[in-house]
């Protein structure tokens, strides 16, 4: 209590502001506004909306708290609070009952919160072990520079990193994310897992890596390996998904890989790239989720097999979705490319001996991202309309202003941040946060390049003008003389686009294992727990004394372990 009063008296010791936290806070505020605006329409008609808005507000405030916190313990408390908020917010995805995924995310995030606590304790014991409890409460979240030379410090780093990973959704703590994306209401997904959690996780990881610890090459390699694996594995899983939101959820995981990779380079360029990528990711990912949410609201489903051809019903949403898709796939000159390019520079100059591996994983990951987004674009917006889509198109409902506004702003940001590249956001905000000399081996002049691309578009348009484009005639598609109207089955749904890939060699085995959830930490632990459960049910037979006996034995074992 005393320290709480102390803290209130003297906030400077507990809160601090860095350029990075300021820009993060600005973004968080922006997403907060968008989410609320978007929710007006999307969430209308649901029960307990006041609770929903309070949760959102609380989440936002807690986020601000974390961003400006300069104290580990304060951070820990708010961190845990966010996890709880997420749990509560996921619950709004259903009319009644809390979905399994909410429990899953609470378990994973809560579990890593415990690791976070452990890590903090370890740091305290390394640094201020002698000063006792007061020192623990005052443990500052800045400039410690702990060397990663002892087992304790390595474990402490890994614990903190795990918490960051779980929050951001990097492997191996990613599994809550796709499930959450499927179950939670879209604004929640866009707000928390896609934006704020990423922001916080990567922010935390960057600060821990840069300020609390001094990285070693080995730890860098571990981070980069984790990042690369996250990129590849998540994107491969995303390729074969057939639910819109789940697919986006896997991409939320995959993109974290880039950031982890960037931070793992330990190179100022890489870290700056990672932070830049984090912002870009929150922008286009929110845009994607919001657009996807609109699709789901209008059609009532997010199953790709039942969607298609929606571009006629919602051209604006499609445009935003396409821009965000191109952005996430790293097509120049959108913002995704700018940050990925920086990341690659970091990897090339700071990737160590295995830089080729990381680089190729990241670049291939981006091609695969493009592939899965093309699948989405086809099976949701383009291609032939499904039954549901046809009804939606015929209803002629206009997309609401509150839906368009966030999408439009986000799309503009996608283009804008890409074209001005890192010049403004980077020079003013990330660079002070990162420090060090920035040397980039390559060249990317987004301004001239954009001009050239624009010129290409103009040339194409001129070619069109010289042709007969203005008096275009609408005719039936050519499918060998048959008509689509008579054959509604002649519809490529896009769900099975990459089945061929799935059935190639070793991938077949991996996919089969992944479907059995063998790579899902939570499920595996649950299975193990279920195995224990069988033993337990054998052991408890309903007699109180027996329970007592087990309880005592357990206590004894616990004591022995702890001592």
């Amino acid at each position, binding site marked *: 209590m005393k320290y709480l009063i102390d803290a209130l008296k003297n906030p400077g010791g507990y809160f601090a502001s860095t350029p990075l936290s300021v820009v993060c806070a600005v973004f968080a505020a922006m997403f907060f506004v968008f989410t609320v605006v978007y929710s007006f329409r999307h969430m209308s008609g649901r029960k307990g909306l006041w609770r929903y808005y309070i949760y959102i507000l609380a989440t936002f405030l807690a986020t601000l708290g974390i961003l400006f916190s300069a104290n580990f313990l304060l951070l820990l408390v708010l961190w845990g609070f966010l996890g709880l908020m997420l749990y509560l917010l996921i619950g709004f995805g259903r009319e009644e009952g809390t979905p399994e995924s909410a429990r899953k995310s609470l378990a994973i995030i809560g579990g890593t919160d415990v690791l976070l606590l452990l890590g903090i304790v370890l740091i305290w014991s390394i640094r201020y072990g002698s000063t006792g409890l007061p020192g623990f409460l005052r443990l500052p979240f800045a400039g410690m520079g702990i060397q990663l030379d002892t087992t304790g410090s390595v474990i402490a780093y890994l614990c903190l990193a795990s918490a960051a990973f779980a929050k951001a959704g990097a492997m191996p703590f990613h599994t809550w994310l796709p499930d959450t994306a499927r179950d939670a209401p879209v604004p929640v997904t866009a707000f928390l897992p896609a934006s704020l959690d990423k922001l916080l996780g990567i922010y935390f990881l960057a600060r821990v890596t840069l300020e609390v610890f001094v990285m070693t090459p080995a730890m860098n390699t571990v981070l980069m390996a984790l990042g690369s694996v996250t990129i590849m594995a998540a994107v491969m899983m995303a390729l074969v998904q057939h639910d819109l939101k789940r697919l986006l959820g896997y991409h939320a995981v995959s993109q974290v890989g880039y950031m982890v990779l960037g931070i793992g380079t330990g190179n100022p360029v890489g870290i700056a790239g990672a932070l830049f990528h984090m912002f870009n990711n929150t922008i286009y990912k929110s845009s994607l989720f919001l657009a996807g949410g609109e699709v789901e609201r209008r059609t009532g489903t997010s199953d790709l097999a039942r969607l298609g051809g929606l571009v006629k019903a919602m051209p604006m949403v499609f445009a935003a979705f396409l821009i965000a898709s191109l952005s996430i796939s790293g097509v120049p000159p959108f913002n995704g490319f700018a940050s990925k390019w920086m990341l690659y520079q970091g990897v090339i100059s700071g990737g160590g001996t295995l830089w080729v591996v990381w680089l190729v994983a990241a670049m291939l990951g981006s091609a695969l991202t493009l592939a899965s987004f093309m699948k989405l674009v086809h099976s949701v917006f383009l291609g032939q309309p499904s039954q549901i889509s046809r009804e939606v198109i015929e209803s002629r409902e206009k997309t609401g202003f509150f839906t368009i506004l966030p999408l439009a702003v986000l799309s503009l940001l996608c283009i804008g941040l890409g074209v001005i590249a890192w010049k403004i956001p980077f020079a003013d905000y990330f660079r002070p946060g990162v420090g060090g000399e920035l040397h980039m081996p390559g060249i990317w002049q987004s301004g001239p390049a954009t001009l050239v691309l624009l010129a290409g578009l103009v040339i194409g348009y001129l070619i069109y003008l010289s042709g007969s484009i203005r008096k275009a005639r609408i005719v039936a598609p050519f*499918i060998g003389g048959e008509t689509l109207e008579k054959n509604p*089955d*002649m519809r490529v749904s896009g769900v*099975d686009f*990459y089945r061929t890939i799935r059935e190639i060699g070793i991938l077949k085995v991996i996919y089969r294992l992944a479907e059995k959830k063998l790579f899902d930490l939570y499920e595996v632990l649950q299975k193990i727990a279920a195995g224990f459960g069988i033993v337990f049910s054998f052991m408890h037979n309903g007699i109180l004394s027996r329970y007592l006996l087990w309880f005592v034995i357990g206590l004894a074992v616990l004591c022995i372990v702890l001592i």
Partner: protein
Amino acid sequence: MGRTIIPIGPYHPLQEEPELFTLTVEGETVVDIDVRIGYNHRGIEKLSEMKTFENSTFVVERICGICSTSHPFAYTRAVEDVFPMEVPIRAKYIRTIIAEGERIHSHLLWLGLAGHFLGYNTVYMWAWKLREEILDVMEILSGNRNNYAMFKPGGVRRDIKPEDIPICIRKIESILPTLDMLKKAVLDDPVLHARLKGVGVMTYQEAIDFSALGPTSRASGVARDVRKDSPYGAYQEMEWDMIVTSNGDVFDKAVVRILEMFESAKIMRFCLEHLPGGEIDANIKDVPPGEGIGHIEAPRGETFHYVKSDGTNRPVRHKVRAPTFMNLPTYKATVQGETISDATIILAAIDPCYCCTERIAVKDTGGRILYGGKDLIQLSREKTDRIKRRMGVR
């Protein structure tokens, strides 16, 4: 989930004739297939009932452009079977020469198209270049490139001039080395192996169940060839081999066809060299009442004609069964489980000829030869020359 119908046809570059195959696919894998034919049905069986026995030959010739020998051959044999009667030995030899020439040109055509379907346009061009030589031989022998108009009940319509024989033999000999080269190019290409081997396998039992015919069944190990089983024409006069392979995949079907060309060339050469003298026509006047069946081995398999006569000069019923009619349904056994890319080549591998399948030619009452092919050809040839001169092309 995710099932889609992919149409192949009716107007599709894969097919010369319109047919609609609907492939039900999951991803790229074909799980079901259905076919809708009838885009080519012209009612030839009915037409044939309206024409005299003599004129029906021309209708039958136009069942199919590629089989323009097989159908008249089977038809004339059916009419001759009504008596039954034998045709003069020289006519038999001439018929055999024409039939084998057609087999070579048909197989080359198939080979070229198969290459085309696989995107291997070089094979397509080479095979068709070679085919032109055979067509030249046919033009020398019959005066026409395709619809030869050589057959009539009781014999042949046109004799082979003795001075043409050495020219033809030379031509046939000249194509053999190129054919050999083509054979090596096709059969030794590793990419082709990867593409064709083990694809669209039809087992022996399936070949029996579907009563598959010709090279399609011979590739599955069914050693059946009408030329051997119930000899006709001059086939029993010489030695030749029936080509049988056992895998039943697309590659084997190609192998059978390519090797058969060599046999055909052998037969053709033998017949030309040993052409006996004598009449070429038995001059049938009236066809007695009765029934006749003629079946011969066309390039694609057995062609079957059934003719019923009531003593007038027109058939009461003329039933035509082209080999594709029996071969085509085998797609059910061969295509399922393959990919779309393979489906197209599997469909092509049975050498489908839908115009045959949808014959039902009807006999025509008229009796006039509706189109004197030769005259028109002559006209068009002159026209072409004129235009060529005008355009300055060679």
